[in-house]
């Protein structure tokens, strides 16, 4: 399973590195979300600093949808999904590989967005470990839930419009917990921030387990 996961993740990441869709489309989109939400809030620096964690995670969430759509689109070519299914690779390995590829892309995106909020909203993270752990746990949850819902909508003509409706309500706990933990990291209040990790950990574990168990039946349905 792990060897298969590495193979699938390597394949997806190689395709992304060559096509550079993430670099030229998803990253600029995420930065655009930061700027647009800041426009909506107004130029007051105190309000922007207060809203910075929420804006950061909104940008991550919307970009996750794009990244998942891209991850599904890779397999949407003529017979590509069938080819992957017939290759004998463990479905759990495919799930883990695709989730790892999406997760790595999201981590890179979050580094860019971290720099973005620091530069645009003039905020400074005081508890760096909390911000990093929050991002890592949230990324596992986002990637696993995202890939699962991506597989659910794969092969459908209305995939692009259906996926956000399906996945965004599911990802709402990550938005909530991520924003709160980041707010605590900005304020230097590690103990209150660590409490929100109690949501991110089960979220990541639940979707990781569901994905490993159910990706096989979902592949057959797609």
């Amino acid at each position, binding site marked *: 399973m792990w060897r298969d996961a590495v193979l699938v993740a390597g394949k997806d990441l190689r395709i992304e590195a060559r096509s550079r869709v993430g670099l030229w489309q998803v990253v600029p989109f995420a930065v655009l979300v930061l700027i647009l939400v800041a426009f909506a809030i107004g130029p007051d620096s105190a309000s922007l600093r207060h809203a910075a964690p929420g804006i950061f995670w909104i940008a991550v969430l919307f970009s996750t949808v794009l990244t998942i759509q891209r991850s599904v689109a890779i397999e949407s070519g003529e017979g590509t999904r069938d080819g992957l299914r017939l290759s004998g690779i463990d479905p759990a390995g495919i799930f883990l590989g695709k989730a790892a590829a999406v997760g790595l892309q999201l981590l890179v995106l979050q580094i860019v967005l971290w720099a973005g909020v620091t530069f645009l909203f003039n905020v400074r993270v005081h508890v760096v470990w909390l911000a990093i752990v929050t991002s890592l746990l949230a990324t596992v949850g986002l990637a696993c839930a995202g890939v699962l819902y991506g597989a659910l909508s794969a092969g459908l003509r209305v995939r692009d419009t259906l996926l956000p409706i*399906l996945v965004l309500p599911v990802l709402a706990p990550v938005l909530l917990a991520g924003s709160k933990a980041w707010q605590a990291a900005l304020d230097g209040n590690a103990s209150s921030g660590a409490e929100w990790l109690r949501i991110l950990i089960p979220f990541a574990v639940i979707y990781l387990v569901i994905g490993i168990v159910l990706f096989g*039946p979902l592949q057959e*349905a797609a």
Partner: protein
Amino acid sequence: MNTITTVSRPRWLSIVGLLGVVGMGFTVWLGLWVTPPDAVQGNLARLLYIHPPIATVALYWAGGVALAGSLLYLWPRTRSIFWDRLAASAVEVGAVFSALTCVTGSIWGRPAWGVWWAWDARLTSTALLLLLELGYLALRRVPADPAVRARRCAVAALLVAVDVPIVHFSVDWWQTLHQTGTVLDPGFHLHVHGSMAWTFLLGFISFSLIFVWLLAVRYRIEVIQDTVGDQEMEVSLADRWSEGSELVGIGSTSHQEPDGGAP
């Protein structure tokens, strides 16, 4: 060819529906006229004879049936279209009750909390449950092979069910505006007494019966939809076959005419 196979309506279904509606009528009568005003909330507490029963149906009955139906469909030994239809019906009825939960809670919240909507953990997680159910129904409406659709929807229902324990425990995990369990405490001790308790109980029973009735009616519609879909497909195929036969007939006739006139 246009006749539609009739799907029988069991007698018990009408009885359950009638009992549910009559029970709900009695709940309204008892709740509005017979029971006394609450010591703290006054007349506002009368809405609580219907809000918790509606929320119970939305969360536990509909959520439980959808989860059980989806699991039994995914399990190869028990796989049957019955479980798929039952789960889909439960999610649809559950969506109606989730929406009613939000609406009745909102009506109560305006005078009690001063706002129509509060960003409370229980309210937010219930609203998310409704959105998840709407997502499931959107997925359900996408045309697909019945077996493929059933498997896809079964997985989606399991993912919706993840929110059910979040809604249930939200009042314990986050101490926000919504009160914790007040009818029964964790030790299952009743905190409502007298006519209020009986009205409350009748509300639970009535809405549960209405849920069973709506579930069965929705299931029957699901069967009829599938039957009509199959029959329409057969009619379309028969039409195409007959069109094809006519075209072949015309082709062969027009081909034969010159031959026939040649000698």
